[in-house]
């Protein structure tokens, strides 16, 4: 369960403190529910997601997490001078997987289909290879809740198909909080929705209701 209580967030800009992006968001996300964040550009979807993920902290308010939350799927950092394998090992170690390190690295190697390139430095990778590795790393760990910002799959058509399948698989066994502009992606993966508008969040048990509210608001 993730309890967001009265969260405010604003960023520092070049001209001092910016406007409030989130003002007074209070939402409770039950465990095991897949949630889509809906809202226009700049409504604070990514902001809320990074607050939930713990990468950023709210200006005011609290977020309680009683579960293991992933980093944004497919957006884990890669150190360019290290090889794919070394990066994978680093992430395994950070997440405390010392005993089954080899298995997980083998899984990432296998899933990413990078073959020999896995032992080459990241700076030699194409952007497709990078995102394949990043996506594979996200798939190699078991989290209670995964967060995903726009990216569900990357790489060539064959890899994208495989990635989409395992992403759906993952959304069945764990919780998912995602931002996506494609309505189809949201409908495929989520049951519930949070609609962000004017810095406030509205919870909908059914994703369709959230999308309806969002579209009606836009039509006005």
């Amino acid at each position: 369960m993730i309890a967001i209580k009265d969260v405010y967030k604003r960023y520092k800009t070049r001209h001092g403190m910016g406007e409030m992006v989130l003002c007074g968001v209070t939402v409770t996300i039950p465990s095991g529910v897949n949630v889509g964040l809906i809202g226009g550009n700049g409504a604070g979807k990514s902001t809320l997601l990074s607050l939930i993920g713990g990468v950023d902290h709210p200006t005011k308010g609290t977020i309680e997490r009683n579960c293991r939350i992933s980093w944004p799927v497919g957006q884990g950092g890669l150190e360019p001078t290290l090889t794919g394998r070394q990066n994978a090992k680093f992430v395994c170690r950070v997440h405390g997987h010392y005993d089954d390190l080899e298995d997980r690295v083998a899984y990432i190697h296998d899933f990413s289909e990078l073959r020999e390139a896995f032992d080459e430095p990241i700076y030699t990778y194409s952007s497709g290879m990078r995102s394949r590795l990043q996506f594979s790393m996200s798939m190699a760990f078991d989290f209670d809740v995964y967060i995903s910002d726009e990216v569900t799959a990357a790489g060539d058509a064959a890899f994208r198909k495989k990635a989409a399948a395992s992403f759906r698989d993952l959304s069945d066994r764990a919780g998912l909080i995602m931002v996506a502009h494609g309505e189809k992606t949201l409908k495929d993966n989520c049951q519930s929705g949070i609609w962000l508008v004017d810095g406030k969040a509205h919870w909908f048990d059914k994703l369709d209701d959230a999308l309806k509210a969002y579209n009606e608001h836009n039509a006005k």
Partner: protein
Amino acid sequence: MEARSPLAITLSVWRAIFLREALDRLFKERAAWVWLLVEPVMHIAFFVWVFAVVRARNIGGIDTSVWIMVGMLSFFLFRRTAIQVMHAPSSNKAFFSYRQVKPFDTALMRGVMEGFLMIMMSVIVLFIANLLGIPTIPGDPLLVIVTCGVLWLYGLGYGLVASVLMELVPELEHVLQILMLPLYLISGVIVPISSIPYPYQDYMMINPIAHGLELVRQGFAPHYHTASGTSLGYILAFAMTHVFLGLLLYRRFALRLVMR
């Protein structure tokens, strides 16, 4: 899955960063570890040769080679730790997208890594020098260990403070780099501070690193005449102030260091 305790997370992050830094420092390029050793050895060899040419057999009552070697290694201990720690957050930016990794973890682990490497290197250099007949067995090992620990702590503290300041004011990087060069000259690495006339000697002793070098030399040869006013408390106070100031800055600006 069961949540890990904060301590368990921190420890596994430290271990991961330590291994990653070791890779970076020792195997980044072909035989990168050789160059770690070559730099201080060349500095030492050059100045030992210069002093041999001018026939300075002893400084402050101890063998010139020991004086140079010990001073140089202690100075490198400080400088390398400071520089490595200083650049720790900026060279690990990619890993901050995993929220478990905090900038302070990278800084601390880099400091530990560098201290560890400098101990290994110093032991190798002193051992070889001893085989060559230079008396490099410390007379007061405890003083050597304590002073080296304080010099390392000062390097860590300086690096911590500098890394945050550099993030807040990027131009400071140039200023700090310029400052490092005269430090080599005014810390008594190659110019004996006790040979400098008053009142300038007292001015030189404002620099805490000079105190550190004098004390390590005294640890190696207890009969060494240190510059007047040499005090362990002085450099320790500097080191602790920097470490705590650094910790404070990391606490205050933790997010600024992580944000891109």
